[in-house]
């Protein structure tokens, strides 16, 4: 387990008061582990304290949408487009783009976000802070 993986997992376990075996890397923060926004805030504060790198909740949204404009990320009904699905597969590799394109409401994307996805995002933030 990498340092970042250990830091993120510990932050999730402590913020959500989980048993260690509940915080598997493929567990989704919101759907599987029941995280609310304040839990997310707690997790990010803990990660920030452990890494020394400022990580805001908005970075999560930016990471997930990848700078794609709203009207290209989802359609007029707020359903994920092919472009949005392709990007989501890059940052959330467990997501099958064919399954979500044209079906997944954009506001439900966060429900698919796993601990592993958070580890990857934190690694990116830490690496860019060190660069």
């Amino acid at each position, binding site marked *: 387990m990498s340092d970042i993986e250990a830091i993120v997992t510990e932050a999730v376990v402590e913020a959500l008061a989980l048993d260690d075996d509940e915080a598997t890397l493929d567990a989704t923060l919101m759907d599987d582990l029941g995280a609310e*926004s304040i839990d*997310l805030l707690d997790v990010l*504060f803990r990660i920030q304290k452990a890494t020394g790198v400022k990580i805001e*909740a908005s970075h999560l*949204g930016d990471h997930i949408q990848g700078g794609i404009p709203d009207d290209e990320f989802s359609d007029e009904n707020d359903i994920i487009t092919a472009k949005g699905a392709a990007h989501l597969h890059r940052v959330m590799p467990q997501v099958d783009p064919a399954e979500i394109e044209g079906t997944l409401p954009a506001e439900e994307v*966060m429900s698919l976000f796993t601990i592993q996805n958070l580890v990857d995002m934190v690694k990116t933030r830490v690496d860019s802070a060190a660069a």
Partner: protein
Amino acid sequence: MSTAQLPDSSIRVGIDLVSVERFERLLADHGAPPDDIFTEQELRYCEGRRRRPERLAVRFAAKEAVLKTLGTGMTRGARWIDVEVVNMASGRPTVQLHGEVAALAQRRGLRGLDVSLSHTHGFAIASVVSLWTSSTP
């Protein structure tokens, strides 16, 4: 999603409940109220007032309730500081939107927002009602 219908408009609600003790502990651990959550004006309003932790917690709940009624969560470039609770001279709280959240609300046809706040030593709760020009914000 259940959406109430009015002629040429629709209503959505958003609600959020926050544990004051937990929120206070989070801020204490963090060292200072983060500037990515609260605006300067919100911090000024709460500073030095009685029950400051409750006031901050209920403002956080209001931000979450607004983002819920907009259907964004923390995606769409939404930031907590883009949702600001501003008290009128009478003390009544109102919500002002800024940045990406304001732009998104305008694109989706937001006509108005109203917020109600309540807090005790244990919990802070915010309820938001939004009125939209179309049926699906």
